[in-house]
């Protein structure tokens, strides 16, 4: 890690690859649902990257890594509990009418020009999240690496952006 802090990219890549199984073990131990494990593992990797300047080479590496992995896994667990308490995912709720053709009418206000203007009016962080995730189609991990924003923050920003856009374009 000390070499990685000094900018040795090869050492950094080797270190991250070697620690991947350990991170997965820690995350699996704290995060009950297997479908979320990979998402949390990526959040851990991004956090390690963001806080790599806090590692003190005079101290052991594993407790530093384990603390980050545990913290991110617990954050994910809390986030999921909060979401499950307040929200229900119902894909059918987005459909206004059973016939897909009929929904086109509802979608018409989101014309290209109107949508661009509405996106341009969004607060900077929400606009950036929409640009990376929805317009450029990047994955959460890619968008996070490019923008330096955490996955959790990107999710919140894109969720708020869509809520704002829906309100503005449909008047709901």
């Amino acid at each position, binding site marked *: 890690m000390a070499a*990685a*802090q*000094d*900018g040795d*990219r*090869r050492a*950094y*890549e080797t270190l*991250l*690859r070697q620690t*991947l199984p350990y991170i997965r073990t820690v995350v699996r131990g704290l995060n009950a649902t297997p479908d979320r494990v*990979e998402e949390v*593992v*990526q959040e851990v*990797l*991004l*956090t390690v*990257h*963001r*806080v*790599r*300047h*806090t*590692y*003190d*080479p005079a*101290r052991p590496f594993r*407790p*530093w890594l384990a*603390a*980050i992995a545990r*913290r*991110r896994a617990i954050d994910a667990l809390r986030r999921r509990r909060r979401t499950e308490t307040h929200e229900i995912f119902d894909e059918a709720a987005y459909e206004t009418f059973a016939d897909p053709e009929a929904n086109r009418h509802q979608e018409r206000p989101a014309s290209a020009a109107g949508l661009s203007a509405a996106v341009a009016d969004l607060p900077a*962080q929400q606009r950036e999240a929409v640009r990376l995730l929805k317009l450029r189609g990047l*994955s959460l*991990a*890619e968008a996070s*690496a490019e923008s330096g*924003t*955490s996955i*959790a*923050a*990107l999710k*919140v*920003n894109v969720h708020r952006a869509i809520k704002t856009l829906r309100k503005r374009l449909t008047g709901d």
Partner: protein
Amino acid sequence: MADAERLIEMLAAEARPVRRLRPPGLRAALWLGAAGAAIALAIALFSDLHLFMARVQNERLVWEMTGMLLTGILAVVTAFYLSLPDRSPLWALLPLPPLALWLATTGYSCYSHWFTDGWVPGSSWDCLKFIIGVSVPLAGSLLYLLHRAAPLAPVRVAAVGGLGVAAIAAFTLQFFHPFDVTFLDLGTQVAASALVVLATAGYERLALARGVR
């Protein structure tokens, strides 16, 4: 699995050299030194030290100020340690003994003033303004430095840092409050300090909710 591998490649490709943080004890000492120098200068220029010296003959006040100062120093040191990923959360216990001393001596004073003076307004409003006024620049500079560690539990770190700042502000107030305090004054000092802790932690909570970090 492939996503994590791809992410590692991306992170490694953009990994520039980083400047390691200095040891937390040293960073805390530097901040405390700078804050202490600014406060000492303000006390030398603007406070009435003769009146303060007369007031400090009271042993109870000496204990109270010792509690405030130690709470301030230890809470700031704790905040710097807690801001790092691999330091034990037990560090948060460090400022508790002097905090207990501060609250106990202030509580005792409140109790005695209630019987001697009763509900006398004193200069509570000025105490509140002073503590908040001193805390804002101190908290701002402290949070700026604590953020450099990108703490994993920022609200907890900010709350402990806020406690340190509030205690230092309450300590400084004693030099500018060279008259007998009332029940309300003492209560206000503790309430203003609690307000500073809540505001600092609340600011962090809000920053997180807005996705600033």
